[in-house]
């Protein structure tokens, strides 16, 4: 397939996406009956009118200061939150948010947890069976895989979690900060695995990161979010230097 043809495939399109959180205390019958205080209802607009589209195989970096809506954006694309307004089109691509420990149940064994995570991520039984050995091998857990997660060290849990999300790949991969987990050798291995996923031409990737050097290196495009709004989107070097210029006077 020629590259020109591939480029025309839009993998993801966001149109006028706005999303607000309701910062409410859940309604309480007791509180209301006693009329101690009314139900507080506060809206926090996390995303305002976000528009962009991403071609298949592209890598988009998302930057912005803390609380600018980066993680919310990923969660909206992953389908965890629905936008209040606007649409997110996925064109039948599967999406996965690289999340640590999707629904781990600590009393179950690592093996069972791989199964459950895979099923939750929407893979079929046979797909999981074909990948499970690779995951076990990648996680370097050995016989521990047949022991309950509660017996694992925290490093082992994150190794397993990483292996699961890295090997069950979706078409669109959302990465919230490139994670480094485990001991030094595993960290190197996991970083290489992420690179491998990112540079896979069939995968569309969105990375949220504060590591500008990393983003310049890997991204085709960078999106700058500020206060839930898109400040700029485009060529990485240009957007990142604009962003740096924007935040540097604040630092001084």
């Amino acid at each position: 397939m020629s590259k020109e043809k591939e480029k025309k495939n839009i993998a993801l399109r966001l149109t006028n996406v706005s999303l607000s959180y309701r910062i409410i205390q859940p309604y309480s019958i007791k509180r209301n009956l006693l009329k101690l205080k009314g139900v507080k209802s506060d809206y926090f607009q996390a995303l305002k009118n976000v528009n962009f589209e991403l071609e298949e195989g592209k890598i988009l970096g998302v930057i912005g200061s803390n609380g600018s809506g980066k993680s919310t954006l990923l969660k909206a694309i992953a389908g965890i939150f629905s936008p209040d307004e606007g649409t997110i089109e996925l064109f039948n691509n599967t999406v996965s948010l690289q999340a640590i420990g999707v629904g781990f149940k600590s009393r179950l064994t690592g093996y069972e947890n791989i199964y459950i995570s895979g099923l939750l991520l929407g893979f079929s039984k046979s797909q999981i069976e074909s990948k499970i050995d690779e995951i076990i091998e990648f996680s370097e857990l050995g016989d521990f895989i047949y022991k309950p997660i509660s017996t694992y060290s925290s490093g082992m849990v994150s190794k397993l979690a990483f292996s699961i999300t890295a090997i069950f790949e979706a078409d669109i991969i959302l990465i919230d900060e490139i994670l480094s987990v485990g001991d030094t050798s595993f960290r190197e291995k996991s970083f290489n695995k992420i690179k491998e996923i990112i540079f896979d031409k069939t995968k569309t990737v969105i990375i949220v990161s504060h590591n500008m050097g990393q983003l310049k290196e890997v991204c085709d495009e960078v999106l700058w979010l500020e206060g839930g709004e898109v400040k700029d989107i485009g060529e990485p070097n240009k957007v990142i230097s604009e962003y740096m210029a924007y935040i540097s006077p604040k630092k001084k």
Partner: protein
Amino acid sequence: MLKFFENLKKYFFYSVYSAKSDLKSEVANSYLNWFWWILDPLAFTLIYIFIGKVVFKSAEDYFPAFVLIALTSWNFFNLMLSGSVKAIRDHKHITSKIYVPKYILLLQKSFVYLFKSLISYTLIFILLFILKVPITINILWFLPLLLLLYLISFGISLFLLHFGVYVEDLFNLTNITLKIVFYLTGIFYDIGSRVPAPFNKILLTCNPIAFIIDQMRNVMLYEKGLNIKYYLIWLAISIVLIITGIHIVQKHENSYAKIS
């Protein structure tokens, strides 16, 4: 509703696998292992036999089976309802990271409870044999009654699942309500003969769980048939509850994660 069946197909295996793992992990490290699933209903039956026979001197026929039928059905209903209120909050580790249809969480739990109930029901059938209860063809009505029990519990649970997200103390309210309903269900007495005239009829028609238990006793112990008219009414109500419940949950489920 179409989406519901698609998701049901997609996540059915997850629900079964996850329920199986839950059950396994529940007993994996205990000394008596899966004996607990049998010991638990057995112990409660003994307690209620003691209360019924010794303390209150009640004289319902086949009392152990009489109580165990009620207790098993009640436990399923009770666990489903009280479990569903906190279901979203209890699964925050999943729902904040990945999209999963929220009623699937309920389905998965229901399989765990259903499995435990089935062990208990099996125990009842053994008990029928021991107590030399005359078995008639009517006993086959047990299966449709079990189906109704499942559907009505699932239907009500969907609503509790939804409102449990928004109403903080719904859990407490549900538990109190369930306790009241427990005593209005005739677990260790017969509503028909022990509750004075207009009220026994009202209870047996308006309290679905009392109706189901009463009917189960009739078909399993007392060689009677099923009250088909009320059965169909409650079946229709359950289906309406499930359809509206699914609709509400589907409409709002993506806002659940936003509520802190």
